[in-house]
């Protein structure tokens, strides 16, 4: 059974997964009566300047929830004003990172909140046309978002002269065509433009030259879903959640060998154990945890022993050589074979690489070849170092972060679970000497 639960620390209310949201704030009526619907938009339009809205978000220190954890307020500041070109906001709802399913929850349960967040953000950055990009498989979520947009339009919350403010804003829903790489923000822009979904080289950065060559801000669904609460309660209130550098709460999609997989909201700074043991009920097969991908398949693997007493913040993860990524925690137990897991994920990345840049295109295929022969009992001890070497040569040398996401976890896994890899190689060595 999936459990969509908030884990607060003492006396704190959830921000996103309120009981009402868990029940569903799907219609405008529900969102207005039970979720303070559109009060933040009204507050922003009637009592705040765009700069003031921006300032609140900076104060909140809300960091991006799509993967990189970049502070949203800082990013918004990168979009140049008065270029004579429109500024666009693109909401990234591609949710492609293996293990991630929290944006889906938000799109289904609180579509209006996302629409409100998109509108407030548009107001702050001077955008009159926003896009919500959804992965192809999100057809049910698209229905909810589209009907939220229509309901909002009927109530003058979207379109022309919103709430009599004289400010116009449109939101267009754009469906992807099923490629993981289109979650990468510049590949996503190409996808909207009808081009092949390939990341763009930076500079120029999309905040300056983005969609159709215009300044563009890209934020994740969860990032933008937090905006209404920040405007209603203030940036300082939001920053009072979590730690100094990792503020607020985060949604975690927990899956794998876990008793109660599901989407959980936790305040930043709680321990991993609070999430995995207390909330998720510990291992599912009565075997101890062996390892976990903390923030999605692109984040380097951690041994279970590494997270004892460790808190969940961007900084703590970084110290362990990994990331909170998109908050997709994939848990493995003693019976899971790391070689098989790594091969499985490497195969995914090989298939999803856009093929544009040399290290990723060639390296992802090579890593799979090496892993496959190790898994098949045809590997050598040299292959283990070769694997790390290939991964290291991909990392940091590619156009986009896909390469790091594909290769970093492989190198880490071989280093941390070398004995398991060696055991597979030993099989082949033994066979070879028969």
């Amino acid at each position: 059974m999936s459990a969509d639960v908030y884990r607060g620390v003492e006396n704190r209310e959830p921000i996103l997964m309120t009981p009402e949201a868990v029940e569903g704030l799907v219609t405008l009526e529900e969102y207005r009566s039970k979720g303070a619907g559109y009060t933040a938009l009204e507050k922003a339009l009637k009592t705040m300047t765009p700069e003031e809205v921006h300032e609140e978000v900076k104060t909140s220190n809300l960091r991006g929830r799509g993967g990189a954890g970049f502070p949203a307020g800082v990013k918004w500041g990168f979009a140049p004003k008065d270029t004579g070109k429109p500024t666009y906001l693109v909401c990234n709802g591609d949710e492609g990172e293996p293990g991630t399913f929290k944006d889906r929850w938000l799109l289904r349960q609180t579509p209006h909140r996302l629409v409100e967040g998109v509108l407030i953000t548009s107001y702050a950055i001077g955008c009159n046309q926003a896009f919500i990009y959804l992965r192809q498989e999100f057809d049910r979520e698209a229905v909810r978002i589209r009907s939220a947009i229509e309901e909002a339009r009927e109530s003058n919350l979207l379109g022309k002269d919103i709430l009599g403010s004289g400010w116009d804003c449109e939101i267009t829903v754009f469906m992807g065509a099923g490629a993981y790489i289109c979650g990468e923000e510049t590949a996503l822009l190409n996808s909207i433009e009808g081009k092949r979904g390939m990341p763009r080289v930076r500079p120029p950065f999309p905040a300056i030259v983005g969609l159709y060559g215009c300044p563009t801000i890209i934020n994740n669904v969860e990032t933008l879903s937090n905006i209404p609460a920040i405007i209603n309660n203030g940036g300082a209130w939001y920053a009072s959640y979590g730690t100094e550098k990792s503020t607020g709460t985060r949604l975690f999609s927990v899956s794998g060998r876990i008793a109660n997989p599901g989407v959980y909201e936790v305040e930043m700074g709680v321990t991993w154990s609070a999430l995995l043991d207390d909330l998720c009920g510990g291992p599912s097969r009565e075997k101890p945890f062996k390892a976990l991908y903390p923030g999605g398949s692109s984040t380097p693997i951690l041994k279970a022993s590494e997270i004892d007493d460790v808190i969940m913040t961007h900084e703590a993860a970084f110290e362990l050589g990994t990331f909170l990524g998109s908050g997709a925690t994939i848990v493995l137990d003693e019976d899971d074979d790391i070689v098989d897991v790594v091969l499985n994920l490497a195969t995914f990345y090989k298939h999803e690489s856009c093929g544009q840049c040399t290290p990723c295109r060639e390296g992802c295929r090579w890593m799979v070849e090496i892993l496959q022969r190790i898994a098949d009992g045809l590997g050598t001890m040299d292959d283990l170092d070769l694997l790390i070497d290939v991964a290291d040569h991909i990392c940091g040398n590619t156009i986009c972060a896909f390469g790091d996401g594909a290769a970093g976890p492989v190198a880490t896994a071989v280093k941390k679970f070398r004995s398991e890899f060696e055991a597979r190689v030993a099989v082949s060595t033994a066979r070879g000497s028969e």
Partner: protein
Amino acid sequence: MSGTRKTLKAHMGEGIAPVVRLPESDETVTFTIDGWEVTAPKGSTILQAALSEGIEIPHFCYHPGLSAAGNCRMCLVQVDGRPKLEPSCIIPAADGMEIVSSAENVTEARKAVMEFLLLNHPLDCPWCDKAGECMLQDNTFEYSSGKTRHRMVKRTYPLKDFSDRLMMFGDRCIKCTRCIRFLREIEGGEEFALYNRGADVDVGTYLEHNLSNNYQGCLADVCPVGSLISKQFLYHSRVFFLEASLGICTGCSAGCNLYVDRYENRVARVRPRPNLDVNDWWMCDIGRYEWDTLLDNRILSPRLKAGEAVDGEKALGTAVEALKTAGDGLAGIVSATATCEEAFLFDSMIRGMGGVTAPWYGPQGRIDPTDKNDFLHRKDPNPNTLGVESILENASTFDDILTRIESGSVTTLFILGADLTDEIAGKLGGVAQIVTITSSESPASVAASLVLPGTIPFEKSGTFVNGDGRLQRFDQALQLPDDALTEIGILSHLITECGTGEPCEDTAEAFAALAGTVTAFKGLSFSTIPTGGTLLQIRGDA
């Protein structure tokens, strides 16, 4: 200053070492590469600035005529000590930047890129046409570890046949997307794209056999490896046996700059020579593939009417006789394909003997030499319309001369290079003497009473003035037989014999005579015309 300065190597060869177009800006930036100071216009990328200073940063996907794609990752350098290496083809150079291109982390990243690129490469250099001018080969020698650690089956692609001009050995492709960018950004047809993803990525057209644009040869040029191959050159010769000379395309009035690559005394191929004022890095397929029509129906020895052979000395004597006896019945026609020096000597000869000269533009008549068919190719098929016209200033017109012919007042007609049409040739019956100097058979040679063999452009040097009024020089690529004369040799002989001028030993002397007479050419000398040409003060059509 530390380290040795890595300069562009001679092995890259003229024409492969990139000619870079730097951004236009009054401001400059100054920065260092491995301690060497480099100054470039603001807006230049690190790589552009480096290459324009002759400093080598290895690269594949960057081509100076195309947008930067940043995909090969060969050009990575360290910028200001940042931990992550950055693509020098993308990062704009800034004042005070410190670029490191020779440190170990940089060379290791390069080795890694080379290893990745060579993983699936067939290493079939022994029968690859690109060997010798292949960036992959060059960079492998210079920057790879020389070993492979790959021990699986290599990825292969079927051969692709795009047209009768271009084919693809996909196994060799490094997915730099230069070809795709060329078609998108320069030619405009967008026929090529990337297909599939990841390691299965493939380049080409959606359907085979359907490439029909006029710039397919450029696709083979921009391909840094031997993937896109020009069929005309397939297995023709090893490029390292070729010798290049500077040429000008005679296909139209654009005057694209060429390298004429010869093997022994034959032309093996022509390819564009970058000239940022004329053709950038490109040339069209008409120029590239149809030059061999110059070799059709060659006239190699002098003859009298109806094929009656005559030895050279006698033939020249006959021509001198014709000139001397013509009186006021003398007229001359010079083709707009003639070089400036030929047109000048021809015109001096005719006028010196009291005759009139007119230009011939071909059966289609005169076409504005600035009119374009596409981004390069021009409608005027003559390489030297403006040159011939500026030399023949105040001369007669072809129609004028034709009227005089029809009224019977022309008794002796000299024709240089012009082909004429059957219809016009049919009107020449009343002209007693027709002397044609030409390289190939045409209505004009058939109608002639004396034919003197001329040369094709590869067999001589000279100058043309292109449709923009740019005077451009070209060198002789092929050797003539010892006893053969170029047009200049013939005309110089005739002029001297008739006593109307000084003999000219070679093109340079003919050009000097021209520069001493024709205003537009004043002050110029053949040997000092820049390889990129020079704009003349002449009245074009614009």
